[in-house]
């Protein structure tokens, strides 16, 4: 008789149990990260903020994109997705139609009725708007996060089983993509500019090309601008801390405030707000406090009269 099998049974069982325990822990950790429950009302408020910004950009801020309806077709250079979709250059009629559709979708999102369909309509129409915007040989990098926000809102129900955990998933995805923009923006500077980027005159050049009253005054201090470039890139890397919900709260708050200051500084120096991206910082905030429904649900019931 071979004693080995009897001896190996407990060892195998232990290993299997350990594997199972590890798998369970991994799964629980994964779910805690990606499906951390948040109040449904937080997503309600977030969706409304996104809808308002989408409508604002299309109606007002992105006037340059609407101008493409009148641009010479000789300048139309459709990006890959536009080519795959056989998206022709915009005309005044098609541009107006898409603009109206985006606004209708955004207003529909504000109502929070059929929220997934509303977000899907906005996602598709805003996507076409942006494909036209960026198919003239210049792509801005401030629209990825808001597109992702619209996508996850189109995939997130407002009622049903585990709706708070699904709401948490939507906001976590937005948070992660929002944060990744910063370290990968630093990466882009090294990828395209090399290590010399930090010591170059890139801020000076940006101010000369797109200066503001404040920016123009800083042109007299090139060393300060170079120092700012170092600070900028170091801070962009440090925002990674925001990917970790269990990082010290003060550190996360400091990083969020730093992000806002970074965008404020950029706006003051060269007049670019990155609003569609920056607004997604609200995915980190307890927005449910702005919800009347949420506040009303927390009001304690009146004590019965004697």
């Amino acid at each position, binding site marked *: 008789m071979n004693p080995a099998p009897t001896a190996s049974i407990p060892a195998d069982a232990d290993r299997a149990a350990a594997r199972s325990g590890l798998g369970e822990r991994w799964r629980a950790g994964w779910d805690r990260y*990606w499906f951390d429950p948040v109040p449904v009302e937080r997503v309600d408020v977030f969706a409304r903020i996104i809808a308002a910004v989408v409508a604002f950009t299309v109606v007002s801020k992105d006037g340059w994109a609407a101008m493409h309806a009148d641009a010479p077709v*000789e*300048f139309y250079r459709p*990006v890959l997705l536009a080519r795959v979709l056989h998206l022709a250059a915009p005309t005044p009629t098609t541009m107006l139609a898409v603009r109206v559709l985006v606004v209708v979708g955004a207003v529909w999102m504000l109502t929070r009725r059929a929220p997934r369909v509303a977000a899907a309509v906005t996602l598709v129409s805003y996507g076409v708007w942006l*494909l036209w915007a960026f198919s003239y040989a210049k792509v801005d990098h401030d629209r990825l996060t808001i597109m992702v926000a619209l996508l996850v809102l189109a995939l997130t129900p407002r009622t049903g089983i585990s709706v708070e955990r699904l709401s948490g998933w939507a906001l976590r995805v937005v948070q992660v993509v929002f944060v990744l923009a910063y370290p990968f923006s630093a990466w882009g500077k090294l990828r395209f500019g090399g290590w010399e980027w930090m010591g170059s*005159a890139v801020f000076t050049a940006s101010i000369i090309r797109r200066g503001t009253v404040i920016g123009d005054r800083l042109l007299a201090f090139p060393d300060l601008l170079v120092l700012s470039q170092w600070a900028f890139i170091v801070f962009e890397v440090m925002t990674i801390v925001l990917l970790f919900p269990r990082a010290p709260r003060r550190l996360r708050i400091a990083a969020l405030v730093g992000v806002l200051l970074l965008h404020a500084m950029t706006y003051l120096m060269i007049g670019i707000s990155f609003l569609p991206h920056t607004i997604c910082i609200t995915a980190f905030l307890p927005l449910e406090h702005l919800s009347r429904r949420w506040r009303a649900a927390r009001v304690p019931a009146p004590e019965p009269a004697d």
Partner: protein
Amino acid sequence: MSDARAEAEPIPGARWRSAVAVLLVALTVLGATALTDDNWPFAPFRMFAHPVRSTGRVAKVDFVGVTESGRELRLDASAFGLRRAEVEGQKSLSGKLTGAQMAALAAVWNDSHPSDPLVELRLRKIGRNLIDGHPVSYFSRVVQTWTARSGS
């Protein structure tokens, strides 16, 4: 419901939602590290990513148009439905647009100003010279000229 019970409760669609999250993160990383602007929305974050020599030139483009009545107008790219960077992004290595593009710009302007159309359109490179990061002087140079006679 207790937190422990809530955690144990199965999440509907957790698997495909996890896949969506991983896919979005992977595409963002791939776009940022290996792809180009052509792959938007998953493109590199490259705005202001190109270094500028602290002793050299900072340039941008604009246009000067001459109308039939003899008026000389300074025009920026928005006069033709474009952003400046979009014009700059389509220049050849020599800094010029194609003749067809110059003619098309003039045609767009003339469509909205039929009473006094352009007969000449110049593409200029303008900017400032830098020495050790200090802007010291301005420069301006005509790169390309379209005339109604030549048509290009």
